[in-house]
């Protein structure tokens, strides 16, 4: 039996069992969540290099039945989601003891993981929507988990904007169904390419659906101008949840869904006039996110808010790589160039999952030790918390693109692709904003890590091992992805790139 359904079944089962057992057994959340995330992370890592498979739910073959699909892109996201989820649970074991209602926390956490894994493996548009809602509802509740004034306000804001996004996505799914008569992504893709590739232009209804999809998924991915909820929601959540939200939620619900729907269902076909418009709008969203996310981050003094704005900018780089790849495909340019751009985007996605979750976890460790997130009240953390400081430093160097860490290579690949595609202005902006990224992480280092011990740091002590072990593991990943790409990185990234490049392969895989 293929292991694909287990990626949804295990966390969903854990989410169901935890609150039930929690009535009699106080530790049910910790034990079950840790156990199931370990299993999921191991399963995800073992699936590297496996052949693409389709699982027919209930034995009904698509397009009638619902299919779960696992191809290269799915495996990439499964690894990011499940490894980060495991490390966040590990961090939670100690960090979350300050909160009450822990079985509920772990149950919601597992529900969120189940939703994300479901989005990633789903081969059916409506199924994707249902899992998207499961993950979203769980994350709304988790953002407001502290139930303090700020957390509730941020949670409500996230809830309202997230629901608008869901409504738009459902509307678009209905439109795709009305035009193609199917909800299966591969079948819809085949139908769209058969009907519109020859006609040269897309049906206006499908264009509306594409616009709605782009808006909905951009809201979930927090691309500018749909980003307003993120800088409130991510800092307000408990640190492990911030790490999950910034590290993987915006990617699996936003970026992955954009990839799957636009590259596979709509397709970037040089014979269809509207595909250039789609690719261009992706580039525009990316450039806006890079500029605004980066510039606003410089002025922040709340450490977690700074990280949240930085997430907006970095997701912009991911979308930039994918968008340039899409544009090359849509204009009929060389496929090797599109491959390079897409590879850069996906590489940055994976790297960002590692270093941004590390940064958010370290912000949790710092808040745990000093009781503040205000950078003006910190300084000289290096002397008091050497491990947290060292790992934070590594992640900051990596995200700001200092060689030889992972962030440098992925940004370099994206920039080379953008220049080769002759978008010189965009490339210029991306280079300048890469320096701005460096500026605000230098600010983090100067205000928090280096300098003389002052303010809230004076009484700080290094956090316990349960909290710094996840930080060390993520720091190793940050360095490892940079240096060891030729050894094992390509085994994750190249199948994902090929899956995105060849939409026809996906159709063949699902429909046989």
């Amino acid at each position, binding site marked *: 039996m293929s292991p694909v359904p287990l990626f949804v079944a295990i966390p969903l089962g854990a989410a169901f069992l935890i609150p039930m057992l929690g009535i009699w057994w106080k530790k049910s959340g910790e034990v079950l969540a840790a156990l199931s995330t370990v299993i999921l992370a191991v399963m995800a890592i073992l699936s590297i290099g496996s052949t693409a498979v389709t699982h027919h739910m209930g034995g009904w073959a698509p397009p009638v039945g619902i299919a779960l699909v696992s191809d290269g892109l799915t495996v990439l996201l499964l690894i990011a989601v499940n490894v980060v989820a495991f490390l966040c649970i590990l961090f939670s074991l100690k960090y979350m003891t300050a909160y009450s209602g822990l079985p509920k926390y772990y149950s919601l956490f597992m529900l969120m993981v189940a939703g994300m894994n479901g989005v990633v493996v789903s081969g059916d548009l409506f199924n994707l929507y*249902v899992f998207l809602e499961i993950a979203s509802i769980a994350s709304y509740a988790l953002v407001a988990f502290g139930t303090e004034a700020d957390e509730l306000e941020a949670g409500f804001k996230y*809830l309202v904007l997230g629901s608008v996004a869901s409504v738009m996505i459902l509307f678009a799914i*209905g439109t795709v*169904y009305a035009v193609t008569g199917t909800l299966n992504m591969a079948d819809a893709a085949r139908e769209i390419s058969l009907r519109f590739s020859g006609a040269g232009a897309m049906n206006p209804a499908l264009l509306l659906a594409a616009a709605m999809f782009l808006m909905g998924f951009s809201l979930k991915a927090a691309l500018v101008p749909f980003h307003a909820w993120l*800088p409130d929601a991510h800092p307000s959540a408990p640190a492990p949840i911030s790490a999950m939200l910034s590290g993987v939620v915006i990617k699996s619900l936003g970026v992955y869904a954009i990839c799957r729907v636009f590259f596979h269902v709509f397709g970037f076909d040089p014979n269809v006039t509207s595909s250039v418009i789609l690719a261009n709008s992706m580039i525009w969203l990316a450039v806006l996110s890079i500029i605004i996310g980066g510039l606003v981050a410089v002025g922040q003094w709340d450490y977690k808010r700074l990280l949240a704005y930085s997430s907006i900018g970095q997701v912009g780089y991911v979308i930039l790589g994918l968008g340039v790849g899409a544009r090359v495909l849509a204009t009929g340019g060389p496929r090797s160039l599109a491959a390079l751009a897409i590879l850069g985007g996906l590489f940055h996605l994976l790297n960002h999952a590692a270093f941004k979750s590390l940064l958010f976890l370290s912000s949790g460790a710092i808040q745990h030790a000093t009781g503040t997130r205000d950078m003006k009240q910190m300084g000289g953390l290096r002397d008091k918390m050497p491990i947290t400081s060292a790992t934070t430093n590594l992640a900051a160097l990596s995200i700001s693109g200092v060689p030889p860490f992972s962030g440098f290579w992925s940004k370099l690949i994206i920039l080379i692709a953008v220049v080769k595609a002759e978008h010189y202005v965009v490339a210029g902006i991306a280079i300048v904003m890469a320096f701005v990224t460096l500026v605000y992480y230098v600010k983090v280092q100067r205000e928090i890590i280096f300098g003389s011990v002052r303010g809230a740091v004076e009484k700080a002590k290094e956090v316990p091992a349960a909290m710094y072990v996840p930080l060390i593991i993520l720091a190793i990943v940050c360095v490892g992805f940079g240096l060891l790409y030729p050894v094992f990185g390509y085994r994750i990234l190249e199948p994902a790139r090929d899956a995105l490049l060849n939409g026809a392969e996906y159709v063949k895989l699902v429909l046989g």
Partner: protein
Amino acid sequence: MTVYFLCAVLLTMGLYCLVAKKNIVKKVIGLVIMDYAVNLYLIIVGYKKGGVAPVIERGMNSSMLERFVDPLPQALVLTSIVIGLGVLALMVAMCIRIYERHGTFDMSQISKLRG
């Protein structure tokens, strides 16, 4: 065509309510209107004038099959209503908590975070 237009009007009304109203309970109502507009849209997609329920019975000929309505959008709407109910419950619960903390439903008085 008019039906689709009216459906879009309903969606826009919900969006307007969500954006323009200060009271968070009214925002919730706006969101519910949007949700229902999309449910209505899905139903319209599957609607067929003079259609019959898609149940195959003994002795039916192929001309009857032509008159079947599309059952899939109805199944989607059922699922979507259930999801909408879940979101609504969470929203109302959050509104109650916000009222407990702030003593008001007015967003302009609650708002401290800058976005």
